[in-house]
């Protein structure tokens, strides 16, 4: 067997072991993370939802969720479910 071929075989072994090892760690680590976060979020359940609502993603800080829900419902009704609200911005 040539030298290059044996290197290639070594890389195959190392590569597959590494990929399996890392994805195993990702599965284990991810599950552990979920459990830990669950643990803390369970503790602060009454506090967080409001707090989180105050820091919504991407945009629109001060349009109340209720307003958005109402709007969405209206759009849904009027458009027979074919319209969506893409972006609401305050002026």
């Amino acid at each position, binding site marked *: 067997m040539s030298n290059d071929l044996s290197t*290639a075989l070594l890389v195959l072994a190392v590569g597959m072991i590494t990929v399996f090892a*890392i994805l195993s760690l990702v599965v284990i680590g991810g599950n552990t993370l*979920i459990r830990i976060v669950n643990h803390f*979020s369970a503790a602060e359940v009454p506090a967080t939802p409001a707090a989180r609502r105050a820091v919504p993603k991407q*945009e629109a800080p001060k349009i109340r969720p209720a307003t958005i829900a109402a709007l969405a419902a209206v759009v849904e009704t009027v458009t027979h479910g074919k319209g969506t609200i893409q972006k609401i911005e305050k002026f």
Partner: protein
Amino acid sequence: MDILEKIYEMTAFGELADSPGTLLMIALAFLLLYLGIKKRYEPLLLVPIAFGLLLANFPGGAMNVVPSNAENNIEHLGMLEIAKQYGIMNLLYYALIKTGLLPPLIFMGVGAMTDFGPMLRNLRLAFFGAAAQIGIFSVLIAAVWMGFTLQEAGALGIIGGADGPTAIYTSIVLAPHLLGPIAIAAYSYMALVPVIIPFVVRLTVSQKELKINMKEQDKLYPNRVKIRDIRTVKIIFPILLGTIIALLVPSSVPLVGMLLFGNLVKEIGSDTNRLFKAASDTIMNAATVFLGLTVGATMTATTFLNSETLLIVAGGFIAFAISILGGIMAVKLYNLFSKKKINPLIGATGLSAVPMASRVANELALKADPRNHILQYAMSSNISGVIGSAVAAGVLIAFLAQ
């Protein structure tokens, strides 16, 4: 007729007559444009690659990438000298591609557009993104056996990772002279996933297996862990993932690190929205334009029309097929030992080619049983396949880079 002679000298006809292979390259550009525009094969990449290829092969336009060698010594020229002597396409190539800059920037954008949610909700399935990397290493061995150097073989094998930026980055590091055909093979086969996956599945998976219903399995054997605070998990997950990968395969950090940075600024939300826009839009789009044009411009008759290109095209297909096969076989093996069964299509999507592979797998499952929606499950191994390929690339680079 002095004037007509001068005009003829100015035109490209003289040079075209001297190298008829160029006409073949132009025809290839037209074919790729057809595939990208009409057939809609990965148009975001194939159209600029094809246009770069076209520009590069008009003789006299000086828009083709000139490989650096001991004689012209381009790698050690300043950027301004490169632009003056070799034109803007070489400037872009040597500044953005040869430096290895664009693939990590595109990975940052990929990260900013990736949602780890489906993977986190079915974390166990992420494991099957590992098995689908076998095509990379199998073709590495086959290519070495056929006479490619180890570096060339690694670049060829990485096509089996079914991930464009990963393939390009690895080629730049290991075998820049093969960049063009490898990029084209990678993107073409990713576009052909709706053909390749059904082909492999038909050969290896039974109708009974295709009907395995993941939702029912979940009801029979429920997960013990529910995610209560998905936002926090999604913010911490890319940091955790980066740390794990960086410790084990540091050479994949330029790719994976940027992917996870892009994902992090997406998940943080409005506080880092400017960074998210830069990663997913501004930088990503500009990088895609320049990547496509310059990769296309690396292909001229002299660098492309040879037997290596044909072997790359063949090898790339084999790498894809073996990767899909590997994923399927890993699921079958798992099913032998577990009560909770997994649909083998979840293995096939470990290939990556996000999200096309998942959609194809979902359609195959629905064809076998119209109530069998597996999209969310397939996305888990699908996304983990991207990570798997980047890790595999890191291993290739760590062992083979010179």
